[in-house]
């Protein structure tokens, strides 16, 4: 018999708000823009059964099934970013050049199991 953990809507896998302020990491001297950005992160459980809203992969569904048979030996699937978007950054380098750089996968848009 499967062992069910009670899962409330608040602790299921989903993006959580994380604002990175470059001042907090002491980078304001060389980053021109942006001053910070909404990076977000994924956190939460991937409970059995995986609903569509949890964006479960086939692998996650199988792992969930195995976890239900053997909760100690096999962990629940992880909650991970499945869709990320880029940001652009303007900064000064060591030669005082102004650089615009495009970085992929910097903002978590969606999470999944």
């Amino acid at each position, binding site marked *: 018999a499967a062992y069910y953990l009670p899962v409330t809507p608040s602790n299921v896998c989903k993006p959580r708000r994380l604002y990175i302020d470059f001042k907090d990491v002491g980078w304001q001297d060389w980053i021109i823009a942006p001053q910070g950005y909404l990076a977000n992160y994924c956190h939460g459980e991937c409970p059995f059964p995986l609903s569509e809203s949890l964006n479960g992969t086939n692998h996650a569904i199988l792992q969930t099934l195995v976890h239900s048979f053997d909760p100690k030996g096999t962990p629940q699937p992880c909650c991970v970013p499945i*869709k990320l978007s*880029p940001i*652009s950054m303007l900064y000064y*380098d060591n030669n005082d*050049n102004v650089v615009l750089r*495009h970085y992929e996968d910097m903002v978590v848009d969606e999470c999944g199991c």
Partner: protein
Amino acid sequence: VNMQEKLFLSSMGLSSRPKPSHQAPVPSLLWKLFKKGSKQTSTSDTDPCVVSEYGVRGNIVRFIQDQGSLISAPAVHCFNCVRKHLFFNMSVLEDVEQLSLAQLEMKFKQDLAHLGPHVFSVDLYRVLRTTLKGVTHESSRKLLLSQSLGPGAHASVHVNLTDLAETWRKPGKNYGMHVELQLKHLSNVLQEHAYVKNPHLAVQIAQMPDLYTSLVVVSLNPLQCRSRRKRS
């Protein structure tokens, strides 16, 4: 934390936190590109690894500062002219980066309408080797561009230097360039393409416009800019 920061900066293409000595003004084009990039989302159809303003692939745009200086007499043997050494440090590009574009921009501070009955020529040379102090530069350089600018002309000149800038990336191969501005009388240019030697020209050298130069470099780091593949 320091180690984590170092690893993160390394993945961003930086060896450590940059320490700029002064905060140079941000060129308007970079602001424009930044604002455009900020609006793009992962669902956007435009390829974020293409700089459409220049029509080339790239995820990094740099405005590289000119580190050259004015060349003073006796190295200058031209009459009524100003000669400047241009040097752009291309070693700021990482080895992994693929150079897509290097464009020189020469901008004049003043409006060229102040030239009156004069034009001035802009000659751009590639420096082939270093020369000893006091030796003329003529034999150690190669002409890249010669252009006349008169009243009403655009106050900026753009030159594509991509191939040359690629050679500058090799250690010890970057001797920079020379730019020479020479004031000429318009009537003489039209008649005989020669400048007049008249006493007024000594005063007119003060009218030589101030020149600002920068090199716009677009490059692609293939590790940070994967090509977009549509799922079948």
